[in-house]
């Protein structure tokens, strides 16, 4: 293995931000300091250098839904976006509700070898919301984040039992906080745009009533609780209040909820159909503010690939979600005002801490496993292609500021200039 030097970057270190070099050898950070030399030098002048990005929320669709994406193509997209670890949601086929499926996902991720692929486990069997999944098996297979994502854990009694069961171990429940009754029949944010379009909406209260209810259960059980894809100003306020009380609560926002509001849905282009939906301008601004002030702990991409033919339908028939791993860092940098420390905190350090992911999200330190990325915060560019199988992205043709320039996973360069280095093997 050759020595790689990341030269002249603005590096996040234990002693603050420094303009310096990093030498990577044998998969680890060998040296941090000025004037280093090695076999290959990558000029990082002007780039933010820090830990590789960590996504707490993506969909790689394997096993079972490989026409949308697979672990190889998802990993390539992640590497291209500066990521070195991705937690993948359990809404696969079969559902990741047992140790066997969780182990398959992790093993397949290791075979591809571009990022750490870490399975999240379902809270309930088959994500059906009736009985607890094999939580012990999942835990033994390395699962630390539990979610029925795509569906809310709607039964408060069942959620309470899951929280009680996981609290002592230290697992975290990651809730898709959208109430079933309030969202029934809805396809977009309930407001002016849905009124004009004559479409049933999903009110902001659909998210807020679940978050409010769940926070009471967190008080009861002491379990770690993470709100996925927070979308409302009310949710941001409740999270801030819960944190002030000292509850073990964290929250996530997606790049698209930072970038857009429900006016993007006015043309009924299904690429803007999300769950939770793109909400009001006030909600979007509260999310930006919440991410900036730290009320919202992390950016989770909710990378949600769908095949092209699945998007060639009217809005109401279209699936929810967008792909986003390749552009998440750029979108956050474009639409939220994060400095270098906050950027790496929200996109790497905090998600790795919440997900309890070893060797990830660490301030670069000599001797550590080299999971690193370099980000050019000023360059402007326009995404035109993707390495994902899917193309459901609203960012094509949009000018973004900031670009992932180098990704290093376990000492190996996995992407340069937003393009993944190694193809990965076909699934």
């Amino acid at each position: 293995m050759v020595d790689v030097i990341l030269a002249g970057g603005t590096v996040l270190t234990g002693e603050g931000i420094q303009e310096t070099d990093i030498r990577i050898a044998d998969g680890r950070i060998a040296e941090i300091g000025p004037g280093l030399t090695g076999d290959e030098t990558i000029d990082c002048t002007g780039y933010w250098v820090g830990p590789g990005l960590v996504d707490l929320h993506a969909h790689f669709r394997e096993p079972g839904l490989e026409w949308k994406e697979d672990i190889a193509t998802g990993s390539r997209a992640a590497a291209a976006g500066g990521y070195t670890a991705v937690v993948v949601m359990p809404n696969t086929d079969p559902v990741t509700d047992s140790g066997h499926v969780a182990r398959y996902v992790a093993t397949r991720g290791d075979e591809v070898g571009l990022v750490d692929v870490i399975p999240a486990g379902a809270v309930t069997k088959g994500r059906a919301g009736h009985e607890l999944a094999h939580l012990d098996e999942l835990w033994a297979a390395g699962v630390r984040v539990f979610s029925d994502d795509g569906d809310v854990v709607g039964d408060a009694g069942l959620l309470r039992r899951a929280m009680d069961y996981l609290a002592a171990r230290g697992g975290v429940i990651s809730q898709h906080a959208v109430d079933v009754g309030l969202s029934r029949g809805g396809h977009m944010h309930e407001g002016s745009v849905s009124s004009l379009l004559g479409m049933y909406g999903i009110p902001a209260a659909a998210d807020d009533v679940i978050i409010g209810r769940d926070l009471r259960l967190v008080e009861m059980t002491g379990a770690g609780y993470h709100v996925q894809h927070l979308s409302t100003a009310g949710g941001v306020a409740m999270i801030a209040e819960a944190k002030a009380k000292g509850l073990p609560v964290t929250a996530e926002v997606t790049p698209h909820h930072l970038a857009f509001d429900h006016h993007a849905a006015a043309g009924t282009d299904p690429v803007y159909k999300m769950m939770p939906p793109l909400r009001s301008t006030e909600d979007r601004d509260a999310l930006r503010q919440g991410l900036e002030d730290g009320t919202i702990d992390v950016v989770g991409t909710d990378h949600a690939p769908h095949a092209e033919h699945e998007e060639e339908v009217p809005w109401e028939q279209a699936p929810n979600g967008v792909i986003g791993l390749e552009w998440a860092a750029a979108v956050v940098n474009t639409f939220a005002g994060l400095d270098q420390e906050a950027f790496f905190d929200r996109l790497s350090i905090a998600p790795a801490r919440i997900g309890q992911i070893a060797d990830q999200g660490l301030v670069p330190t000599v001797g550590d496993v080299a999971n690193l990325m370099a980000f050019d915060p000023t360059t402007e560019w326009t995404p035109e292609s993707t390495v994902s199988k899917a193309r459901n992205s609203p960012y094509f043709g949009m000018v973004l500021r900031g670009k992932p320039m180098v990704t290093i996973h376990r000492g190996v360069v996995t992407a340069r200039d937003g393009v993944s280095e190694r193809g990965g093997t076909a699934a």
Partner: protein
Amino acid sequence: MNHFLTIEGLSKEDLDGLLDDADEFVEVLHRPIPKVPALRGKTVATMFFEASTRTKMSFEKAAKALSADTMSFSPGTSSLSKGESLKDTVLTIKAMGTDAMVVRHQSTGAPWRIAEWIDQPVLNGGDGAHQHPTQALLDSLTIRQHFGSLDGLKIGIVGDIRHSRVARSDAQAFATLGADVTMVAPRTLLPVDPSVFPAEVTEDLDDVIGDLDVVYVLRVQAERGGASVFPSLSEYTARYGVTKERFARLNPDTIVLHPGPMNRGVEIEGAVADDPRALILDQVFNGVAVRMAVLFRLLGGEHDG
């Protein structure tokens, strides 16, 4: 004009121009041979993915009165029931040789999607609860014929506005043509944010009914699951039905319109529907004329010399 998809964004001049053309086609339709050769050799496909009788037949009559050929599509007997996608269905029928497509679909925005897929005019025959622009034209024409102009008229749209593409299109067209529009419905049948429409809003029909020049009665859409949005049909009729008693309180010049199909005894009492001041069959007749105007505008260019 490449397509005819929505009333939103059309100016008073746009609407008046189409209504002026429609007036001429009304004259054509009154001739002994109610037909002109304007669209000879053109083919209009009526693609009604949601069931409809009157709108589909009205478009077909309009196309034939312009000497166009027509092809029709009904979802129940189509390859859609064999799993064919909307896009493939549309491309397949276009490949048979169409010049324009009239689209009705239960999903908001479907005609816009189809317009992205084919390079020929698309006419919106009703999408979801969103738009039904030719209905707005025929309603505007009926009112204009009766009063000479919509300017300054007080028009009340009464009933299930939330689920009504007619209400949305009509409110926009009537207001653009200078009328004062009031939406009358219980809150569960109003759009969640009615402020996006150029209309006043009230829940009390009896409070406004004496001031109206036009009472536009919407159909109660029982298939929308009435029970979940109002307690019972009888309660609806008591508060919002245009009964003989309410009809008696209208100004003597006030007219009643309804887009059909009617639920007699629910939103409109039979005797009101049959009164000469209920211009419901005039609306139907005018529907053919306005659809001729729109088809001619979209397809008639090269014959218009």
